[in-house]
């Protein structure tokens, strides 16, 4: 249960910080950074967070089903912009694959003692 508490506490602190800084970044994302920092600084024991975190991460796909079902009300937004969304999605995904793959490969080669 302590894992759940730490996660909720980080989220709460994240919300407070988000509010204090003018809501530019949402509270749960600041909470993610806080949890990461707390784990790295050993303020929080990773063993205690693991079960709760693993459960949440493993069931993440179920949690966003309601958003997807929201299409029932906003499908027209996608249909109105279908080509823009499909083309942009494909172009951008290919671009990310190419750029990150090439960048990583080139820099990795220069690293002595690595694969090649």
């Amino acid at each position, binding site marked *: 249960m302590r894992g759940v508490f730490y996660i909720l506490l980080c989220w709460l602190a994240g919300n407070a910080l988000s509010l204090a800084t003018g809501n530019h970044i949402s509270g749960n994302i600041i909470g993610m950074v806080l949890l990461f920092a707390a784990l790295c600084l050993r303020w929080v024991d990773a063993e205690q967070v693991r079960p709760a975190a693993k459960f949440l991460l493993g069931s993440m796909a179920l949690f966003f*089903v*309601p958003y997807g*079902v929201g299409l029932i009300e906003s499908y027209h937004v996608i249909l109105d912009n279908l080509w823009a*969304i499909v083309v942009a999605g494909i172009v951008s995904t290919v671009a990310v694959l190419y750029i990150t793959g090439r*960048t*990583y490969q080139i820099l*990795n080669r220069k690293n002595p003692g690595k694969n090649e």
Partner: protein
Amino acid sequence: MNSFISSDLFLLTLTTGLFCLGGIIYRRTRLALLHPVLLTFVAMIVFLQTTGIPYSRYQEATRMLDFALGMSVVALGYLLYEQVERLRGSLVPVGVATLVGCVTGVLSVVYTAKAFGAERMILNSIAPKSVTVPIAVSVSGPLGGNVSVTSVVVFCVGIFGSIFGEWILRRCGVRDPEARGFALGAAAHGIGTARAIEIGAVEGALSGLAMALMGLATALLTPWMEKFLY
């Protein structure tokens, strides 16, 4: 009868049940297009349409799942912590590739869609399309995007990347297993990572790292980039 099938408990049970059923169908067929999430989307939409239960009722009933989604974003901090061990010795390629990937991902999708005449609400909805859904909706929501559009587009990008990613990487001359895994996680988040784990342990690990770091970089940089994009 109507109040029974529109109760919170019934709708939550049905959603979870359909998701489990989708998992079974997916494992039997191994077709990426029959992903349990897509099957649940479709089945749930058909159910709401035939019974006439309004989406607002469904949204209210499944508020618990929305809360859990918020918690899982925080839990990604744990994933990041677990993956960061792998950074040792490859800080430069990982750091540079994450930053370049994040900027490329946001700019290319926004400018391409803009060229096709999409309005700002659409652009903000799809700007974080390369990162895992919970982070993507936490980014697009506050920017005034439509979170339903975000989740569906992000999801489809993941499916596309997991199906064609390997082939595209081969065509692009990316042969280093670490680079291939990293690119899959960066472009196709959790779904790409699931595919990368099937390819191999090295690919899977780097893909998980890429997914976590891309999520973090995109969450922090997109609200800032958005100010200069238009």
